């Protein structure tokens, strides 16, 4: 059942506090450098030994961008020198060989995703080579629902090149837009025309890609409701299957690029809420379904269908229809989720390169999940995907009495219940339509690693 989300400015204002996005649990701050190559090998070995090992998802991180977008908090390297890409791909090829050897041959890869940075910093030929290399080393699924997807910067790809990607097997693309308002674009150093963007989107369709996503950001400098309304209308006019609307988190002490942003030009907290309200009203008004955590989809898109029939999942690549997979992250800063572990490659190009050059799996930190971690991860995953906590299923699967095991969490939930974000019954904990925009705040009640309220937090705010 697709549930509505209700915009409640007062609630959002009060609950706008730093918190994780829960693409993993435990979250990245819990990753420890004591988790290294041996631990990853062991986790892979154990995952191969399961009665029916999970299928694989493969993520390839391409860290290069030709120019810095000032809002960006991603791991990337700014360069125009294409030879960087060549050297990177040589090492990536080695990593593909080393990583694929960890997994039994019968484990299919059902999902392959290129993220960045800017994956189309690479030429379409180079990208095709990487796909071919992965196809040789991993067992790419022949199933119809196999996904090969890529994040595209529409400024750096032609419609013909989109055709080349489709011919390589790409079935999904995600286009970065953020805002079409020229004033905003100049403030964030990303000037991008409407025509060129729509041309890329149309090319994705024409060449048979299954779905196209557009990323927007609210809370950028110089952003106005009038300007953002125009952007929304333009995007909706092109009818992408999915639209993500991210809140800009200004953390200049963490992300260097953001220091280029003039903080006085940022919208106030109130103006930011207005932008979010506008986005939600406009998108739902245009027939998009709210999936959760910034994501909207057309009702006939696979994400919306999966949410309706209870098969929606979420991993580092976002919401997905693919059931639990082991995730193999390749490239600088990539995160893997293998068996009962999370692990991450070095976040700097030099560290990643030297590990590969020394024939080592380039994992630099990670965490092995305890039984308690697994339980909470399952709970949070379900909450993020379906807006509710499956109390009975968790009790049964994990042999707990929910009310006892989560007595603390239920206590922390009490004010959220009072505020109408959550309904709390013995057999069911569910986000209300008001609470659906604050899923991470609900999830935080079940996170045993969160610092005490008031302590410094490494996370961005909820809105």
């Amino acid at each position, binding site marked *: 059942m697709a549930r509505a989300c209700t915009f409640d400015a007062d609630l959002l204002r009060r609950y706008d506090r730093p918190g994780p996005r829960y693409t993993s649990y435990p979250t990245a701050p819990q990753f420890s450098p004591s988790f290294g190559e041996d631990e990853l090998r062991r986790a892979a070995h154990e995952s*191969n*030994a399961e*009665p*029916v*090992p999970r299928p694989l998802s493969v993520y390839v991180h391409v860290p290069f961008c030709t120019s810095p977008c000032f809002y960006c908090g991603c791991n990337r390297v700014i360069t125009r020198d294409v030879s960087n890409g060549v050297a990177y791909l040589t090492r990536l090829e080695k990593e593909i060989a080393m990583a694929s050897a960890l997994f*039994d041959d019968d484990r299919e890869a059902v999902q392959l995703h290129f993220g960045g940075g800017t994956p189309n910093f690479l030429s379409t030929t180079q990208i095709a080579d990487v796909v071919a290399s992965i196809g040789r080393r991993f067992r790419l699924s022949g199933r119809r629902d196999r996904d090969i997807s890529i994040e595209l910067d529409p400024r750096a790809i032609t419609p013909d090149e989109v055709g080349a990607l489709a011919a390589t097997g790409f079935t999904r693309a995600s286009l970065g837009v953020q805002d079409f308002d020229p004033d905003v674009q100049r403030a964030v150093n990303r000037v991008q025309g409407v025509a060129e963007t729509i041309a890329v989107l149309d090319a994705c369709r024409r060449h048979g890609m299954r779905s196209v996503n557009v990323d927007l950001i609210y809370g950028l400098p110089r952003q106005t409701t009038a300007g953002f309304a125009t952007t929304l209308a333009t995007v909706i006019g092109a009818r992408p299957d999915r639209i993500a609307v991210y809140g800009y988190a200004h953390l200049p002490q963490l992300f260097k690029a953001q220091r280029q942003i003039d903080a006085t030009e940022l919208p106030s907290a109130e103006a930011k809420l207005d932008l979010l309200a506008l986005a939600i009203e406009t998108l739902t008004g245009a027939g998009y379904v709210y999936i959760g955590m910034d994501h909207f989809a057309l009702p006939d898109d696979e994400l919306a269908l999966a949410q309706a029939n209870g098969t929606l999942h979420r991993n580092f690549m976002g919401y997905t229809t693919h059931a639990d997979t082991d995730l193999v992250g390749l490239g600088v800063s990539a995160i893997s989720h293998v068996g009962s572990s999370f692990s991450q490659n070095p976040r700097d190009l030099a560290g990643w390169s030297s590990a590969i050059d020394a024939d080592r799996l380039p994992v630099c930190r990670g965490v092995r999940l305890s039984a308690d971690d697994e339980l909470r991860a399952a709970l949070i995953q379900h909450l993020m995907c379906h807006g509710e906590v499956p109390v009975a299923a968790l009790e049964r*699967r994990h*042999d707990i009495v929910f009310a006892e095991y989560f007595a603390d969490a239920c206590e922390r939930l009490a004010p959220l219940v009072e505020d109408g974000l959550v309904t709390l019954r013995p057999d069911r904990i569910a986000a209300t339509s008001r609470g659906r925009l604050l899923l991470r705040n609900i999830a935080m009640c079940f996170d045993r690693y969160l610092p005490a309220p008031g302590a410094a937090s490494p996370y961005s705010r909820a809105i």
Partner: protein
Amino acid sequence: MTRPPVFPHADARSIADDGDDATFCTTCAFSSACLEEGVDKRELRELHVLVDHVGPLAAGEHVFRKGDPFDAIAAVRAGTVKTYVNDPDGNERVLGFHLPGEVIGLDGVDGERYPCNAVALDTVMLCRFSFPRMSALAARLPGLQHQLFRLMSRNIGAAVRLGNDATADQRMAAFLLGLSERLASRGFSAARFHLTMSRADIGNHLRLAPETVSRVLKRFQDDGLVDLDRREVELRRLDELRALAAPILST
């Protein structure tokens, strides 16, 4: 909670580690035989029959190796022990999986050395008994001797079962039902348990390729016979599994 624990999780009813110097563990393979004979654990200890509690052993640690001098048998108190041999080409042959309350080392009885290897698959606790002393005691206590014979014949039976031309589905069904019965007899849930052994070990034991193990289990799941979640399996349609396994179990 009144539901029986899901192996390898244990509670007071299933864990075999609840004994002390004066009382047997509830799941001890020998307790009833000895108690019937009027021998309690204190006397056993005095007789230096009960050698010691061993463990915990971590996954991958060996209890004994082929060729080690045979001097003791051991009862599993917690975890799973795999017994195996290597053929002349160095290929492993899995002989069996031993669960709490079950005894390993019995196949060493007719010689001076262990004829196989025994390795812990997860965290394993054991009770180790001196075999020469136990046989001497058994000579005086017919009940204990009977129990030893029973354990040995069960061991042989387990090996015979898989020696026919059963299909992969039949083997898998018989394997799951066998585990279910053995665990239930020790106080664990009969319907839900963890497969503590790897799919390669299961395949080796059932003489199936690991991929076949996964394919059959996946089909069982798709057909609603079992439910799988990582290593945990739940038997859902027992009658159908029994019907499937009948050609093997009735031999």
